[in-house]
């Protein structure tokens, strides 16, 4: 009934030979490591922000692109981790490392809870249910004033000294994001990931083949939540501040838009998508305050003309040429 967003994509193993993928990855790695050497300070912080949101977008892609379930609650899961980190490091005065670990655990637990409620649904119902679940998180953060600081949020205690300047923070983020990306990559290409794709393409067939579909979806959702939690913890260090706007619906929408812009089901498209959206926002706001219009138009145009996203498009083009 529901055609996944990425249904038009050929399987990606076929259109990119392994060697070339590795070449691209190496080039990307060099570019990412060299970035702070050529960019001024503020742009480096933007680059760090892009990396953080790439992880959020990848976590969404795990569900949307590989399990065929498009979620609208990952902003809330991401932000829950941010809240836990800031609360732990300021209100409770704990260490950042323990805080980050707790944040990721909290996000994972939250995702597991959401998964229990949501995996029975699919298509737009899944989208709407996860939207509602995210709204609950937002409502709790807004109203549980004694813990969350309500509307005003929580202010952090400042970044640790060794992460204070943009360049060292960027490398710290890169040092986290690179292995996380590798982990997600391995995850979706594992036999487990293959089964997920099977479920995406035909749930009934996988069920008939004896796969435990709900269990697979539950695990995929929970693991994707853990990755969103990693991004949220990084964001806590980046912003040193959290408020209900970090967990609100528009955060989930932004994450999903990044995943879609890059290309659902392409994983690494998340980097392209996050870069496009964040850079676009930065450039557009120099010229006009009409950012919502620009974002809305971007959404409309992508949906009409390039639903497979930038990376997806490029792959299709490559595949066709061969």
């Amino acid at each position: 009934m529901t055609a996944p967003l990425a249904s038009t994509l050929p399987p990606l193993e076929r259109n990119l030979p392994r060697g070339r993928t590795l070449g691209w990855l190496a080039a990307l790695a060099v570019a990412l490591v060299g970035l702070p050497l050529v960019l001024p300070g503020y742009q480096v912080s933007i680059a760090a922000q892009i990396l953080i949101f790439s992880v959020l977008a990848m976590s969404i892609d795990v569900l949307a692109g590989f399990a065929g379930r498009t979620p609208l609650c990952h902003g809330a899961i991401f932000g829950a981790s941010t809240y836990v980190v800031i609360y732990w490091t300021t209100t409770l005065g704990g260490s950042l490392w323990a805080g980050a670990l707790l944040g990721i655990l909290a996000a994972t637990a939250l995702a597991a809870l959401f998964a229990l409620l949501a995996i029975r649904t699919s298509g737009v119902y899944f989208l709407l249910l996860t939207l509602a679940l995210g709204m609950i998180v937002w409502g709790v953060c807004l109203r549980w004033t004694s813990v969350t600081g309500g509307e005003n949020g929580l202010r952090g205690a400042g970044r640790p000294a060794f992460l204070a300047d943009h360049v060292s923070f960027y490398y710290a983020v890169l040092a986290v994001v690179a292995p996380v990306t590798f982990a997600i990559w391995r995850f979706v290409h594992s036999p487990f990931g293959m089964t997920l794709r099977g479920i995406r393409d035909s749930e009934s067939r996988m069920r008939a083949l004896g796969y435990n579909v709900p269990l697979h979806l539950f695990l995929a959702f929970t693991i994707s939540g853990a990755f969103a939690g990693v991004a949220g913890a990084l964001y806590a260090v980046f912003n040193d501040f959290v408020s209900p706007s970090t967990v609100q619906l528009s955060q989930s929408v932004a994450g999903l838009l990044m995943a879609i812009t890059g290309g659902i089901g392409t994983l690494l498209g998340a980097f392209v998508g996050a870069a496009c959206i964040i850079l676009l926002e930065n450039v557009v706001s120099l010229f006009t305050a009409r950012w919502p219009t620009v974002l809305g138009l971007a959404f409309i145009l992508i949906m009409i003309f390039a639903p497979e996203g930038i990376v997806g498009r490029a792959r299709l083009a490559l595949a066709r040429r061969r």
Partner: protein
Amino acid sequence: MGINLFQILNGLTFAALLFIVASGFTLIFGLLRIVNLAHGALYLFGGLVGYSAAQATGSFVLGTLAAMACVALLGVALDQGLLRFVRGVELRQVLLTLGIAFVLNDLGLVIWGGDTYTMPVPDALRGAARIGPLFYPKFRLFVLGLGIVVFAALWLLINRTRLGALIRAGVDDPEIVEAMGINIRRVFLGTFALGAALAGLGGAVGGAFLTLYPGADAEILVFSLAVVIIGGRGSLVGAGVGALLVGLLNAIGQVLFPELAYFVIFGPMALILAFRPLGLFGRTA
């Protein structure tokens, strides 16, 4: 005891508004399979148009009609101009309407500047009426009545007219209707216009007692989503029951559990959806 009747009336009148808005949403969702996330934006835009028209003409009724007409046209334009490119792909449609919502809200901000507006109400509906021991705003009672009228009109339309029969058939099996030589596209378009007009009606009426401001769109949208999810796709009775449930939960929840205001609405909704994924009155397609 006066306070209890009061809360129940509050819940009922809010439910009536929710029903007006959500019935439009559920019609479009049911027949066209489009989760129109721009429905809230249509509500707000309609309300603002209604406000300006009512200011210009001095008439609440004309303002309301203008709101409905303008939003119905907008709905048709969106359906024909944009949504036609993504027919049949549910998720692309949902996300496309989200983009439309962004643009429409920003447009409203540019035109009306983001101040808070109140739809002017005719003198006859101003002030409070006395019901037994308590005073209650006349306008809210009017909204309650309007909600019932809209429900009755839609029920008759769907259950007693040929168009209604086509809509019902279209909800269940659009291919068969098409195969019977009926231009289902026109039915679809009419339904979209009707659904949008209901959002415009909601905006004009809601704008008179909930006011119109940036962000009103998202609020009403989230409430409408809750109504439709609880009630089930395309079900008029479901929208009615869902609206009553959400309206009453909202009124009573805010009094009894002010800390958990959102939980009181979305908690039950998440549970219903988890155990009845298609809502209370939803049917599989």
